[in-house]
């Protein structure tokens, strides 16, 4: 019975007959030398190699199991020696100043790390103020689990003890065994042959090439090596000389001498024949072996296994699984191997559907995964005016204030093609209209949003995604208008009451054809007038849209072409007719003409119309653009140029005037490395070609040079000129200096001074002075 038959239970797809006939000798050799287990492993390895989709995940699982069985957890160092360890990483400060009557701000940042049982968390406190904006300042802080650092620590603990890695490497035995098999077969073959004159034929083979070379050499190479190593030319020359000597001295020589010479010649000639015969045997044996072993497939399988080896212990999932099974950990450490995300403070939150958007204060977000199941939940206070750029805002009509909580669950395997997600969000809000008025009596509301999303796979790469969302809103203190009875306070009581009005749904289809390198996509969506997600503002309610497009990649990575058409209808009044329509068309392409020249360009059109009382245009824009990037080589240097030409026409009516603009925009950028420094020139020009100016004609030119000073400092100097026709004409210089001392201190300074050549009518947009300094100190 062949070994393949014995391995019936472990052979999935390939028919046993193929393996049994082809590899029987190989299996027999392995079995004899190393035992049945090894032969079985070889069969599995060969199967992995032969199958079209090579998946080595089971190798890692087996290796982990074996390490656990053999070495156990004691061989790994415990991760929880230090319970708590706090480390300050970096403190930095920055000061930004515009010209004295402009805007200035000061910011401080402190970054630290906290380690709890070796689980890393980062702490960040960011304080900023804007001196000219009502003396306000703000502090943002957050505390986050550093997942990447944790995975890195787990990995270094795992690989610090070599056993897992060695086990994985040792499973890469197929090639080693194949080598031995070749060695064994060749030696056996040679030993079985009796050569007339050649002694130690196997020694000759061993000296001619290594077994690795034998595996990769072609017939010619094998032959050349053997012949060369056997010094065949020397022997051949000897024969010729002796023959010549014999023929020259035929009369002189006595019979015994000539006999011995003839003998030597015969031996040498036999030796030559033997060498040639040996070479032929080596070549023939290899041919047979290659065929029987399908050596090319094994090479490519081995190369894939090498990729797997280097890649598998870099993948977070694998590290987590191995750590959970092999490393001694406490409950919290184990829990954190499942945590994807844990943060608190002033943060953004993540759910799997996009329902939870925005930024939150005094918030918390935790997401964990276990195999295909992913959970995320969190909550916090809505905050739309965070950040330095929002310091001056006193009122907000865009988003309400309040707090929210959410829960999200998603089930998906690696490829997400069958992903299913559900999110439920609950918010208690009130419109943060003005900070000047007290809000106590203002209507508070409870807003709930539930979203379901599912992917359906189509073809080999396509996905149909269906998303359904419903919202419900309940005012506190709502009474029935007829009876005066109080209504229930929570939005949950409202769900399903007004279905169509409060529904938002979207279906999209996207696919990819590798044969045509084409990726089409289609989307259709509807949002009811009553749909309201407190976290998203009022942007999409009462609308219907459809969207079509595709992307085509050119062959040989030459570039791509993208096209998209989208129509959006809005219903802003209570009747059922649409009031507005926004139609847009986008197309762009990139094309790598040659190694040094790249083209790009596009056309964009957008139109907004009212649909009431017929159709009338509110806004129209057509924008054409073309750009080119190329490298120009000169005798001992090269430059990179980038040219961008845009033309657009815009038509719409504003409250005070009509806009009818035909604008031409040109950008030109050229840069050249000068040794290890860099010089560049930038020119920008825009001109209104029509009668009425919308965007003022503008010309900007900047010549800059970036260089290193004394190894640790990088600096940049630039001369610039800007002419905003009629408003400002300035000539300026800018100097930047950065110092980076890898260990402790780094700073950045930048000073920009502009001199007015005519009266400056817009000092806000064109300040005369701008300075910026930031320093950071690492611990």
């Amino acid at each position, binding site marked *: 019975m062949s070994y393949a038959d014995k391995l019936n239970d472990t052979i999935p797809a390939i028919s046993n007959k193929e393996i049994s006939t082809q590899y029987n000798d190989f299996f027999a050799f392995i079995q004899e030398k190393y035992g049945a287990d090894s032969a079985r492993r070889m069969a599995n390895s060969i199967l992995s190699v032969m199958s079209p989709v090579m998946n080595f995940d089971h190798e890692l699982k087996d290796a982990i199991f074996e390490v656990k069985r053999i070495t156990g957890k004691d061989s790994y160092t415990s991760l929880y020696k230090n319970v708590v360890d706090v480390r300050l990483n970096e403190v930095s400060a920055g000061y930004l100043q515009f010209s004295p009557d402009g*805007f200035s701000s000061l*910011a401080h940042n402190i970054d630290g790390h906290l380690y709890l049982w070796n689980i890393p968390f980062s702490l960040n406190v*960011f304080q900023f103020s804007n001196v000219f904006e009502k003396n306000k300042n703000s502090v*943002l802080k957050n505390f986050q689990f550093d997942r*990447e650092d944790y995975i890195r620590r787990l990995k270094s603990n795992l690989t610090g003890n070599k056993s897992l890695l060695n086990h994985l490497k040792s499973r890469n035995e197929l090639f080693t065994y194949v080598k031995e098999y070749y060695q064994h077969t060749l030696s056996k073959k040679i030993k079985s042959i009796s050569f007339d004159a050649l002694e130690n034929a196997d020694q000759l083979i061993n000296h001619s090439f290594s077994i690795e070379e034998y595996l*990769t050499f*072609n017939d*010619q190479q094998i032959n050349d090596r053997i012949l060369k190593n056997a010094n065949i030319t020397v022997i051949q020359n000897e024969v010729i000389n002796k023959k010549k000597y014999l023929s020259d001295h035929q009369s002189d020589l006595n019979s015994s001498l000539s006999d011995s010479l003839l003998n030597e010649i015969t031996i040498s000639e036999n030796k030559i024949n033997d060498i040639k015969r040996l070479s032929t045997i080596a070549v023939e044996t290899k041919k047979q072996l290659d065929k029987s072993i399908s050596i090319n497939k094994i*090479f*490519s399988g081995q190369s894939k296994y090498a990729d797997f080896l280097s890649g598998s212990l870099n993948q977070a999932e694998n590290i987590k699984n191995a750590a959970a099974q092999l490393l001694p950990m406490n409950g919290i450490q184990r829990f954190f191997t499942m945590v994807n995300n844990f943060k608190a403070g002033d943060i*953004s939150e993540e759910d799997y559907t996009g329902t939870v*958007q925005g930024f939150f204060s005094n918030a918390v977000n935790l997401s964990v995964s276990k195999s295909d199941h992913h959970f995320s939940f969190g909550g916090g206070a809505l905050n739309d005016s*965070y*950040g*330095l*750029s929002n310091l001056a805002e006193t009122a*907000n*009509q*865009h988003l309400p204030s309040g707090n929210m909580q959410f829960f999200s669950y998603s089930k998906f395997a690696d490829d997400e093609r069958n992903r299913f997600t559900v999110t439920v969000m609950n918010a208690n809000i*009130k419109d943060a*209209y*003005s900070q000047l008025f*007290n809000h106590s*009596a203002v*209507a508070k509301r409870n807003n709930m949003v539930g979203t379901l999303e599912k992917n359906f796979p189509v073809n080999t790469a396509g996905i149909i995604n269906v998303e359904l969302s419903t919202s419900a*809103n309940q*005012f506190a*203190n*709502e009474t029935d*208008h007829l009876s005066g009875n109080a209504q229930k306070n929570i939005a949950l009581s409202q769900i399903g009451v*007004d279905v169509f009005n409060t529904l938002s749904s979207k279906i999209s289809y996207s696919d990819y054809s590798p044969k045509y390198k084409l990726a089409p996509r289609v989307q259709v969506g509807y949002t009811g*007038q009553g*749909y*309201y997600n407190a976290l998203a503002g009022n*942007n999409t309610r*009462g609308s219907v849209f459809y969207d079509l497009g595709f992307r085509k990649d050119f062959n*040989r990575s030459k570039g791509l072409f993208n096209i998209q058409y989208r129509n959006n209808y*809005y219903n*802003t*009044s*209570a009747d059922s007719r649409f009031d507005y329509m926004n139609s847009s068309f*986008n197309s762009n392409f990139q094309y790598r003409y040659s190694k040094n020249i790249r083209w*790009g360009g596009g056309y964009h059109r957008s139109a907004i119309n009212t649909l009431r009382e017929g159709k009338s245009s*509110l806004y129209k*824009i057509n924008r054409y653009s073309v750009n080119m990037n190329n490298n120009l080589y000169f005798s001992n240097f090269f430059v990179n140029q*980038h040219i961008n030409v*845009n033309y657009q026409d815009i038509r719409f009516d504003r*409250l005070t005037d009509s806009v009818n603009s035909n604008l031409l925009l040109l*950008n030109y950028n050229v840069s050249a490395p000068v040794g290890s420094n860099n010089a560049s020139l*930038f020119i*920008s020009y825009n001109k209104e070609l029509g009668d009425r100016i*919308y965007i003022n004609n503008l010309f*900007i030119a900047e010549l800059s040079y970036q260089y290193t000073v004394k190894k640790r400092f990088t600096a940049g100097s630039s001369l*610039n000129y*800007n002419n905003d026709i009629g408003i400002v004409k300035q000539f300026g210089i800018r100097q930047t200096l950065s110092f980076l001392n890898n260990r402790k201190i780094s700073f950045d300074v*930048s000073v*920009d001074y502009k001199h007015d050549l005519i009266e400056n009518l817009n000092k806000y*947009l*064109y*300040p005369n002075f701008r300075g910026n300094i930031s320093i950071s100190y690492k611990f």
Partner: protein
Amino acid sequence: MRLIVLLLLLAGKLQAQVNFVFIPEINSRSVDALMNIKVMNAGGTDLGDLQIDVKQKGIPVVRIINKNFRLVSGMNTALRNGQMSISFYDNQVARIVRQTGRFSEGEYEVCYSFNSYHSISSNECYSFDAAVLFPLQLAEPFQNQNICELRPDFQWNPVFPAVNNATYSLVLVEVKPGQAPQEAFAYNLPVIHQKYINTNMLIFPASVKSLEEGKKYAWRVSLMTAETVVIRSDIWTFTCGCKEEEERFNFVFKDIEDLSKGDFYVSNGFVNFYLKNYYSDTDLNYTISPINAGKPLKNLPKVKISKGDNKVSIDLRNVKNMKFDSQYILTIHMVNGDKKTLRFVYKYEK
């Protein structure tokens, strides 16, 4: 005496005691805003019901009643006391208000009344046009695009209907690796923070340094009146720099000693290794042959190695006859006569 009291009473009746200051731009934006009004009381402290009724074309939409509302003398800005209740009628307009807190587009009439428990009641009506703003839609640079310009122009669709005294404000921040865009707006200093923009487009400001190659940026436009945020756009991101070639390749340098011991090397256009040269600077003496055909390849790139440590990177992308997915042997002839061979699979598609 009675005549004086009567006259005073009459005078009291003729005077409007309570005035409601309703400013459409401010107070018609939402249901909450209806209550953010100033109430002027010419008389003394009073107690009663404050009622707000909203109708559209005579059809009632919403009613807010604030019982036991205490009205002080003079200006009342805080409607903070009493028990408030809100009720909605049964029609589409009312349903939309109840679900979103906002009025859909149309003409409305709002009547404010103060029904005093002890003295005269007051009533004032106003009409207003509720305007629903079109979303603020960003246009260029497109969402998630990779752009070649380091000083791009920004463009967005204007907001309709036009809002009085409103200007746009644009903020651009760098998004650091691992940061969500909203967190970038919170924790990073803005690269561009331009206020009071009158047009629906911003040319990259002359006073701002160019953006940097390879970095990701996020931007957002807001419509503002004074310091009030009227509407904000979504946050869009883009990445600067389209020099794709060099970044595709993963440059890892392993020792040639290790590589030649039989590790399998996959070349994605380059063969990279680390080599120590004990001799003087020289050209690397190497050949590359296909695994089965024999003839070494011609016109291989010249590689210089110096004395000491060398990170050697051989660019094979332009070498003729290199075939995708084929195996080759690289043989290096060292100065001391040693030979190193490295077998690799070529995986670069032109």
